[in-house]
């Protein structure tokens, strides 16, 4: 198992290098001049040329990329063109806010979505099931930013019980978490319901029923574990995506997270910041996927055997 984990971690290196190369290339060939963006659109050409020289932008692309990779391998992810601050410092300052939103949204989705999915599956075709499936369809369609604005209207404007912008206290994360978790919860409900319906029709469930096991025992001990594989996959993938930045929600609620940092970097052609933040998001995403794979082995021991065979 450790060998498998080690292999996965090693594979991340070429993946991250590939990501950095793609990003560097995109920034290089996309229109816009970072020097002009810094100096202003009406800056004199001579000043822009001088800043190009200062920033090393006159060097050929491969030399600049090579220098960047060399520094990256020594732990230096560059200095932001805009703020002149170390990119890693900025990213680590912004990441906790994104982690809070992503974590609370995922937790909320799991706590609400999985039980409701189970109930809906066990009461198939009942009024509860119809209500749950209809509601989850509605929430799958609602964009998170719209829901966020509605929550602000209700909880801030009318009820005055939650703040609309900022991230100073836990109250600041309630609405962002609700807005972010809505779609994820709806997806989890549908996935859990669908998987549970497949599982409860299996022979071993019928056997357990025939042997006199209570419905609670059948669901929690026999069926749930087999349902969890796809559910954990969705949770893990979505958590990893959210960790890469929930830009729209960050904008609506005035929270300074990784998503905003990345988009600001794109707009200002701040290549070092963009590459560093995307690499960070990719690394975190990769680690989350690895953790999900490890969790599989606890849910289904057969998976562990497959990993061990595969890593030999």
């Amino acid at each position, binding site marked *: 198992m450790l060998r498998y984990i080690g292999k996965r971690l090693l594979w991340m290196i070429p993946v991250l290098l590939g990501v950095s190369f793609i990003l560097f290339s995109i920034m290089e060939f996309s229109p816009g001049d970072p020097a002009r963006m810094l100096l202003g659109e009406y800056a004199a050409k001579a000043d822009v040329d001088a800043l190009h020289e200062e920033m090393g932008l006159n060097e050929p692309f491969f030399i600049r990329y090579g220098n960047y990779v060399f520094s990256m391998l020594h732990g230096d992810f560059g200095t*932001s063109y805009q703020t002149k601050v170390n990119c890693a410092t900025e990213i680590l300052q912004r990441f906790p806010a994104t982690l809070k939103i992503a974590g609370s949204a995922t937790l909320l989705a799991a706590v609400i979505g999985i*039980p409701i999915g189970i109930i809906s599956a066990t009461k198939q075709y009942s009024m509860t099931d119809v209500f749950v499936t209809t509601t989850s369809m509605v929430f799958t369609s609602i964009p998170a930013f719209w829901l966020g604005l509605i929550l602000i209207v209700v909880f801030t404007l009318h009820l005055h019980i939650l703040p609309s912008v900022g991230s100073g206290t836990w109250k600041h994360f309630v609405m962002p978490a609700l807005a972010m978790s809505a779609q994820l919860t709806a997806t989890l409900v549908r996935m859990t319901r669908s998987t549970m319906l497949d599982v409860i029709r299996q022979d071993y469930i019928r056997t357990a029923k025939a042997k006199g096991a209570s419905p609670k025992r059948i669901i929690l001990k026999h069926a749930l574990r087999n349902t969890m594989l796809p559910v954990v996959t969705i949770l893990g993938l979505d958590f990893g995506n959210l960790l890469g930045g929930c830009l729209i929600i960050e904008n*609506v609620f005035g929270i300074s*997270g990784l998503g905003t940092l990345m988009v600001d970097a794109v707009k200002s052609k701040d290549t070092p910041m963009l590459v560093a933040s995307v690499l960070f998001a990719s690394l975190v995403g990769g680690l989350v996927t690895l953790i999900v794979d490890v969790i599989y082995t606890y849910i289904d021991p057969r998976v562990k055997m497959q990993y061990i065979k595969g890593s030999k």
Partner: protein
Amino acid sequence: MRKTIKILMAICLMLTVSLFFTACGSDTKSSGKSDQNRILYERALSDVPTYDPFASNDVTTQRTHYQIFDTLITQTKDGKYEPSACSKFEMNKAGDEIIFTIREGMKFHNGQKVTPEDVVFSLNTAIKSKYTSKVTSTMKEAYLKDGKVVLKLKYPFKPIIGCLASCNLAIVPKDVYEKDPKGFAQKPIGSGPYMLDGVKKGETITLKAFKDYWRGEAKIKTVVQKVIKDNTAALMALESGGLDLMQPSQDYSDRKALKENKKVTYYEAPQAVFFDIGFNCEKGRFANKKLRMAVAMAVDKNDLIAGAINGMGTPVDAAIVPLCPQYPKNFKGTEYNVEAAKKFLAEAGYPDGLTVTMRVIAATNYTKPAEVLQAQLKKIGINMEIETMERAAWFEKVYNGGDYEITYYAHPIPVADADFCTYSFFHSSEADGNGNNFYNYKNPAMDALLEQARASQDEDQRADLYKKIAEMVRDEAICVPTYAGYRTMAAVNDLQGVYADSFLRYYKYDYSWK
């Protein structure tokens, strides 16, 4: 199972109820303390990337800089200029030197006295900086003479006083800045009415009143600038009490909502910019003056203002921002005449009309007017396709690359003087990507007028010269000025001293609570 669900529901209910009770006292509104100490919450459009006044020219960043730093000259509410960090100033007879007497008793936030050496250092640093050329391009150097600061210009330049009000010419402590310019950019020391007290990156900037400010401590002791990028969220924060002050978007429905809100006062001022249709006067079909005239005569400016900006603007006929004192009175722009436009189109060689592409930045400031113009030009037989481009792409290809036929853009100015909206836009030396003459218009007669107007020290003569320049722009149809919009501001009713400023120069020192 049912029991488990009931337990879960009970927990959720308890959490919701406790949320009601604990959050009821939450600070969703501005601090309820006595007015003297009430915090002012202001919206910021974006974070401040640097507090180095010589390394930024972004207006959003400068809104914070104006609170932290002093300048030699300050702009008053009615657009006039008066001494600030200097007690007086005088220009020499030639008009190429200004002598400043630095005010006594001024201090920096770290307790150091502001000295003439600091002022000389600050001016020279600004002059050398690549970021400040919009306001320092005419300055040569600063030096000390008999305890006074002398600013030497490259040539006599009448609007120089307005340039000195820019926070790009902020006064900083020489020894602190020289020792660690990078550190200064994150922890600035100024002599302005507010000190930087705290920053939460990307979220808030906290300013505290400087007790030893030379004009006396500001009435509002704490200002918190909240970074809220989304306009709707900012509007709701203002309505719910999370904000006291914000600059609303240009969106008509936002402005309407604010005007109708009884808890909020809405302010307007003319923009220091005019929007215009730009032609590539050197290459392509619009190098033909008759085709440009056809377009100019097909533009109904009142209709454009109504359609593009819901009537919130004024028509502009001369290619000069109306705020400038040199804007010619009763100037007659190109007449709106569809029949005459069709005639010009035929004379240009397109009796059956033609199809052109207007390249604009993908922002409603430009796309909405483009759509109205599309309908207007259709009446004379010009099918105009609109190609929207990302801002950076537009600047690279259109503004600096000259790769366009017709576009829609703006002439913003940092100082209310016609030189800023004419010289760099129409002088041949600024063409071909060297400056702002993206029309690539090259005419020695125009160059001569612009140079004369720049050098003149006589305001009447300058006004006359700029009138001639405006007439040449009109007659040559280099561009078609259309309208100028409004700058806006909205504040809660009990905040006094607020106004909308054309140049976005806001001094919180002037604000107070009722």
